[in-house]
C-alpha cells in the first residue's frame, strides 16, 4: 500500500513537471471589441491574462510590470480558434494495415517542426485535433494539441488533461482501402457495420473477463488465470466504458444512422460525426442521440458520397439543435477557419455568435475541453486572437495569437522564413502545388493509385 502511494506521488510529480514545462504568459489587451462568445460582445474592453489564464475582463484594467501590454483599439479579440479535425503536426496519419487499429495513437507521431502549426496560428487557430486518418473503420487514437510553436519537444504540443479521442471511419475510404484494396471485409457499408459489432463484442468479452479476473484474483481458492493482455481490445473497451470520445469520419445519412444504432446497442454515448456532409438529412436523429457534427463549410462533390450535399449543412444542423463545428481537415483551410465560419451567413443566415461558436465553443465541446477553452471567461485558458476588422468580414486579418497568454504569432514580427528546423536532405527547389481534398487519406496513397 505504501509502495503504491509512493509510486502515485512520483507519477504525479513527473506529470506535474511535464505540465509545468509549457510556458504561461501575462498579457493585458486594452480597449478592444471583445467577442466573448458566451457573454456577448463588449466594446472598449480589456482582457487580462495572468499565469496563462484569463484573469479579468473589464475596463481600465491594470497589470503587473511583467505583463505585455497590447493596445487593441479598433480591433477585435476573440477566443483562439479550435479545429476539431486536422492532420497538421503529424509525422504519420494512417496505419492503413487493418480495418481495426485502435491500439495505435498519433500522439506517438507528433511533429513539432511542421510549419503548418505556425500557419494555423497566423489564422488565429490555437488548438487542433490531430487525427488519425480515415482508412480504417476503427482507426487510431487522436491527440488534442495546443499550437505552442517553437518547441522541439512533442510533449509540449499536447493539451494536458484533454480527454482521449479516437478516429472511426465509414463509407468509401475504409471500403476502398480494405475491401477494394486488400479483398477483406469491409468492401461495403454492410461490412463496415459488422466490423464495429465484432470489435465491440470482442472488447466487451475481453473487458468482462478482466473484470471477473480482477474481482476474484485475491479471493482464496480462485484458480482463474489473467486473460491475455490485448492493447487493441483495451482501447475499444475504454470506448465502451465511456472514457474515449469517438470522432467518426462519415458522409451519408444511412451510415450515420447505422453507427448511432450500433452505439445504442453497446451503450456508447460520446460520439461526434466528422465531415458528415449528409448530416442535415438526419439532423433530428443526431440531435436526439446527442451526437456532435463537425463539418466543412462548403466542400462537396469531390467524391461520390458527397455529391448530394449542401453548403447549408452547418445552418440546418445548428437550427435543429445539433452541436456543430466547422473544421479544416486541411493545412489550407485551417489558415482561414474564420472565413469558413463566415460562409454560414451566406448559406443559412447564422448570426455572428452562432457562426463564431462553430469554430470556438462548439469544437471545444466536441473535444471535451469546453470547461477550459472556447470562450472568453475568467478562469479559462489564455488562448486568444486579435483581429483587424471583424473576424467574419473578408477583411479580417489576424494580428496576434496567444496560447496560455504566450504570444506565438505577431503580424508585425513575421519573418520570411518561420521554420524552426531545416531538413538538410530537402531539395529546396522542389515545390508542391495544389491543395488536396481529405488529408484524411495521407499515408494511404498506395490504395489510391493501385
Amino acid at each position, binding site marked *: 500500500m505504501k509502495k503504491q502511494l509512493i509510486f502515485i506521488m512520483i507519477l504525479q510529480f513527473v506529470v506535474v513537471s511535464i505540465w509545468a514545462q509549457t510556458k504561461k504568459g501575462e498579457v493585458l489587451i486594452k480597449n478592444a471589441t471583445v467577442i466573448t462568445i458566451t457573454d456577448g460582445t463588449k466594446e472598449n474592453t480589456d482582457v487580462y491574462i495572468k499565469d496563462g489564464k484569463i484573469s479579468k475582463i473589464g475596463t481600465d484594467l491594470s497589470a503587473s510590470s511583467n505583463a505585455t501590454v497590447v493596445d487593441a483599439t479598433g480591433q477585435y479579440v476573440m477566443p483562439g480558434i479550435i479545429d476539431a479535425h486536422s492532420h497538421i503536426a503529424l509525422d504519420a496519419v494512417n496505419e492503413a494495415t487493418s480495418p481495426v487499429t485502435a491500439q495505435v495513437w498519433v500522439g506517438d507521431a507528433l511533429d513539432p517542426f511542421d510549419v503548418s502549426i505556425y500557419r494555423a496560428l497566423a489564422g488565429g487557430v490555437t488548438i487542433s485535433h490531430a487525427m488519425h486518418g480515415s482508412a480504417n473503420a476503427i482507426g487510431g487514437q487522436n491527440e488534442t494539441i495546443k499550437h505552442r510553436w517553437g518547441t522541439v519537444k512533442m510533449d509540449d504540443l499536447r493539451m494536458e488533461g484533454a480527454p482521449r479521442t479516437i478516429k472511426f471511419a465509414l463509407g468509401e475510404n475504409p471500403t476502398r482501402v480494405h475491401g477494394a484494396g486488400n479483398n477483406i471485409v469491409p468492401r461495403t457499408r454492410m461490412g463496415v457495420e459488422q466490423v464495429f459489432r465484432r470489435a465491440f463484442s470482442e472488447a466487451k468479452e475481453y473487458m468482462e473477463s478482466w473484470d471477473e479476473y480482477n474481482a476474484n484474483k485475491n479471493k482464496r481458492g480462485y484458480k482463474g488465470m489473467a486473460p491475455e493482455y490485448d492493447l487493441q481490445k483495451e482501447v475499444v473497451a475504454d470506448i465502451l466504458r465511456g472514457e474515449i470520445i469517438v470522432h467518426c469520419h462519415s458522409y451519408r445519412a444511412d451510415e450515420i444512422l447505422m453507427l448511432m444504432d450500433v452505439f445504442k446497442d453497446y451503450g456508447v454515448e460520446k460520439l461526434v460525426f466528422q465531415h458528415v456532409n449528409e448530416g442535415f438529412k438526419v439532423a433530428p436523429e443526431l440531435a436526439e442521440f446527442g451526437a456532435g457534427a463537425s463539418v466543412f463549410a462548403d466542400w462537396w462533390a469531390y467524391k461520390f458520397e458527397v455529391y448530394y450535399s449542401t453548403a447549408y449543412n452547418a445552418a440546418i444542423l445548428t437550427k435543429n439543435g445539433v452541436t456543430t463545428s466547422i473544421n479544416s481537415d486541411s493545412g489550407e483551410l485551417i489558415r482561414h477557419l474564420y472565413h469558413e465560419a463566415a460562409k454560414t451567413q451566406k448559406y443559412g443566415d447564422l448570426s455572428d455568435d452562432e457562426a463564431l461558436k462553430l469554430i470556438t465553443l462548439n469544437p471545444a465541446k466536441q473535444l471535451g475541453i469546453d470547461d477550459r477553452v472556447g470562450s472568453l471567461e475568467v478562469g479559462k485558458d489564455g488562448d486568444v486572437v486579435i483581429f483587424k476588422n471583424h473576424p467574419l468580414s473578408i477583411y479580417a486579418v489576424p494580428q496576434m495569437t496567444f496560447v496560455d497568454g504566450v504570444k506565438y504569432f505577431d503580424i508585425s514580427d513575421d519573418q520570411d522564413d518561420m521554420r524552426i528546423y531545416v531538413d538538410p536532405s530537402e531539395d529546396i527547389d522542389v515545390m508542391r*502545388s495544389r491543395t488536396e481534398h481529405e488529408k484524411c487519406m495521407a499515408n494511404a496513397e498506395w490504395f489510391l493509385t493501385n
Partner: protein
Amino acid sequence: MKKLSFILLIAIIGVCSAQNPKAEGGSFALMNATIHTVTNGTLENSNLLIKDGKIARIGELGSLGADVKKIDCSGLHVFPGMIDSGTSLGLVEVSSVDRTDDSREIGNVIPHMKALTAVNPNSALIPVTRVSGVTTVLTVPEGGLFPGQAALINLHGYTPDQMSAGFSAAVMNFPSSGKRGWWDRRSDEEIEKETRENMKELADIWTKVEQYHELDSIKANGGTSVSMDYYPEMKALLPVYRKEVPLMIEVNKEKDIRKALEWVEETGVRAILTGVEEGFRVADEIAEAGIPVIVGPTLSTPARDYDRYDRPYTNPSDLMEAGVKVAIRTSEAENVRNLPYNAGFAAAYGMTEEEAFKAISIIPAELFQVSDKLGSLEEGKQATLFISTGHPFETSTDVEHVFINGWKIPMQSRHTELYEEFLQRSPGLEK
C-alpha cells in the same frame, strides 16, 4: 365551387414548383440600384434596362413599355457577372470518379482537343456556381504539355454552343520542375529527367510548327498543289505560332517562370501566364515582358515551407504593383462559387476592393477578347450581371438575382433545394 377552384389552384402551384424552373426571358428594368459599372465608376440610385439580352440603357429610362418587367433594387447593388479565369467546370462532375472526369485526354501533345466539346450543360455544379454571381468561366483541360483548348462559357444554356462566350485558347503546361502534391512520389532525378525530356519535346514541336507554318504559307500562296496530311495537332498550334490567338502557359515555380519568359521571347507567342504561384519572386521580369497573368487560387498554402504564410494572399497585389495585369482564378469545379472570396483575400492583403473585383471581371474579359460584351456594366454589352445586398466579397452578402445574356436565372441549385427540404424535415423523428 370556390373551395374546389382554390384546391385546384394549390394543386397547379404544387405541380409548377415541382418542375425545374426555367430561366425567364424578356425586358427587365432594374430600378433605383447602386450600379457598379467597374469601368465608369459607381452610380447611386440609378437604373438599368435589359433588352434583347443586352444592357440597353443605364440612367434615366424614360417611359417603359408594358412588357418591361420592373425589379425594385432599392438598397441593392448591381455588378457585372464575375468571371473565373481558370476552372474545370462542365468537364468534371465528381473528381474522384474517373468516368465523370473529362478534363484529361490521353497524350502529351493534343492541342486539338476542345474543352467546349465535353462541357456538360446539365452539370449539377453549374447552378450551384451561377447563383453566387459567377456567370462566366474559362474551363480548362488538364494533362500533358499541350492538353487541349480551354473554352470561355457562360453558365446558362442547353448546348455547349449556347454556353460559349466566344473565346478559346490552347493551353500549355510549361515543363515543371516541381512536385505536384504529397502523392507525387517521383524522385528529384526522375523529375529532372522528365523536365528535360519535356523541354526537348517542346523544342521539337516548335520546329515542326515552324515547318508546318512554312508549308501552309506556301500552299496558301498557291506555291504547291500537294495536299498536306491530316495533322490536327499542328493545325491547332498554327494560330498560336502566328500570334493570332494567345497561348495560356501554366507555370508556377520561379525557375520555370524565368524559363517560360525566355521561351516566350524566343518564339514571340502572345502569352498569358497562368498559376504563377511564385510570381512575386519574378514580378519585375513578368512586368517587363508585358505578359498578363492569371493567378490563383489565392486561398492556397504557400508552395514552400520557408515562405511567409500569406504569400498566396499577397501574390496578386505583388504582381499588380510591379505593373503586371492580373486576373484571379479558383482552379475549382464544384466550388467556383468561392471566386469572390479568392479575390476578397487579395483585397484584404494588398489590393483595393475595386482592383480585386476587376481581376474577376473586366481584366479577364480583356484577356479573353470579350471586353466588348462582358466584364463591366456598359450600354451595348451583354446583360450578364447580378444583383446583391452588398459587395460579393463579404459572406454576409446575398445574391438576389442573376442575369446571363439577358436571361433571368432561377435562384435554385442542389444546395438551396436541399436546404428548403431539410431545414425542417417532414416527417421529423416520428414515422
